[in-house]
């Protein structure tokens, strides 16, 4: 056991080895491991951010779906209300038109009836005139004359 020149040589070898290991092995490996660790950390952070973004998006979707459902139900209620109104309006209009048509038909029937009565009166008058002419022309007796007039009147006015 002695300290001699080997000691100096060992210091040189040791310090040179420290320098070489730092430059060629520890340094590159340490940098590589740090870069990989950073990459993994970035990936995990991105995954966390993605998970959070997904949760936020799902919450937004749920909120929007809720709003859409409310809006859809409002639209549906409004449409049903409008349909009922339209139906009511159409019914009212149809009823009004129907009543108008019936009234017009009644007026027309009444006018037609008046015209028919007028025509019948004119025809009865003509027949009466004709009958009177025949009575005068043929000189019927009073009894026959009365029967004839009654027959004409019953025939002519019976339908009036």
């Amino acid at each position, binding site marked *: *056991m*002695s*300290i*001699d*020149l*080997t*000691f*100096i*040589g*060992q*210091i040189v*070898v*040791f*310090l*040179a*080895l*420290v320098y*070489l*290991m*730092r430059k*060629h*092995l*520890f*340094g*590159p*490996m*340490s940098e*590589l*491991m740090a*870069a*990989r660790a950073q990459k993994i950390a970035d990936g995990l952070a991105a995954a966390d951010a993605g998970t959070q973004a997904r949760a936020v998006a799902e919450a937004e979707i749920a909120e929007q779906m809720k709003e859409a459902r409310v809006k859809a139900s409002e639209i549906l209620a409004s449409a049903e209300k409008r349909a009922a109104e339209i139906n009511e309006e159409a019914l009212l209009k149809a009823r009004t038109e129907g009543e108008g048509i019936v009234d017009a038909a009644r007026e027309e029937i009444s006018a037609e009836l008046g015209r028919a009565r007028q025509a019948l009166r004119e025809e009865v008058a003509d027949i009466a005139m004709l009958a009177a002419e025949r009575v005068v022309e043929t000189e019927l007796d009073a009894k026959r004359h009365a029967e004839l007039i009654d027959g004409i009147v019953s025939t002519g006015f019976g339908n009036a």
Partner: protein
Amino acid sequence: MAEQGHEGGIAGHLHYWTIKLDESNPFMQIHLDTMLVTLIVATGMFVFALWLKGKLVDGAPAGAQNFMESVVGFVEDTVKDNFPVHNPLIAPLAFTIFVFIALINTIDVLPAFMIGDIAHLFGVPHFRPVATNDLNLPAAMAVSVFVLVLYYEFKLKPVHFCKELLMDPFTNLVPGFLKPFVMPINLILKLVEEIAKPLSLSFRLFGNMFAGEVIFLLIAFLLLSGGPVSMVAGFFVGLGWSMFHLFIGLLQAFIFMILTVVYLSIAHQPVEH
């Protein structure tokens, strides 16, 4: 090259392959086995680093990259747990210390005489393959760390460090007129405390590995030199000790690394006001 004589017994296996540059000065010698082993291991680590650097992939690691990433991650975590601030030099230093010591200690699990006997075939009188058994290597690493600690102490908090050297621990405990007299005592105690750091760091590693080697030699001499039963027993005892010593080697590498980080961490601690 002056060779040490081959002595018998365990002591004969505890000599280094030495080249003496000055016979009269014991410092002027080099342990060639220690230098050769550390250079081979260091070169191997460097070649492996270059090879792995060209094969690094960004994606999922596999094979050697996967293994080394686990080692690098372990060292980085250890440094982060113990260090108050970021210093880009500390983790590579701790990594090099851990891997370098662990690799050299692992050589100790080879059979006790194998490397020495192979070296003998090439005319080498002594060869000790585990460089951490030579105090020069643990001391070199410990002194390097100690110098680095002093550098950061003076760089980051020079006034505080000098104040600690002169004022702690007795200055605040004595009356004002005695303060100048206790400062040298404080300085001596503080120097002892500081010098104890590299000493304990180096001697802990050296002592553990040296003792492990001696036990290997004891097992070899006591059991393998006997009859067949003794040899079989010696083989299994040696194998068990190898497994245990492998664990000790890794543990010592970790202890050296963690103490290095702790000492440097103390040097980086911010000054409390």
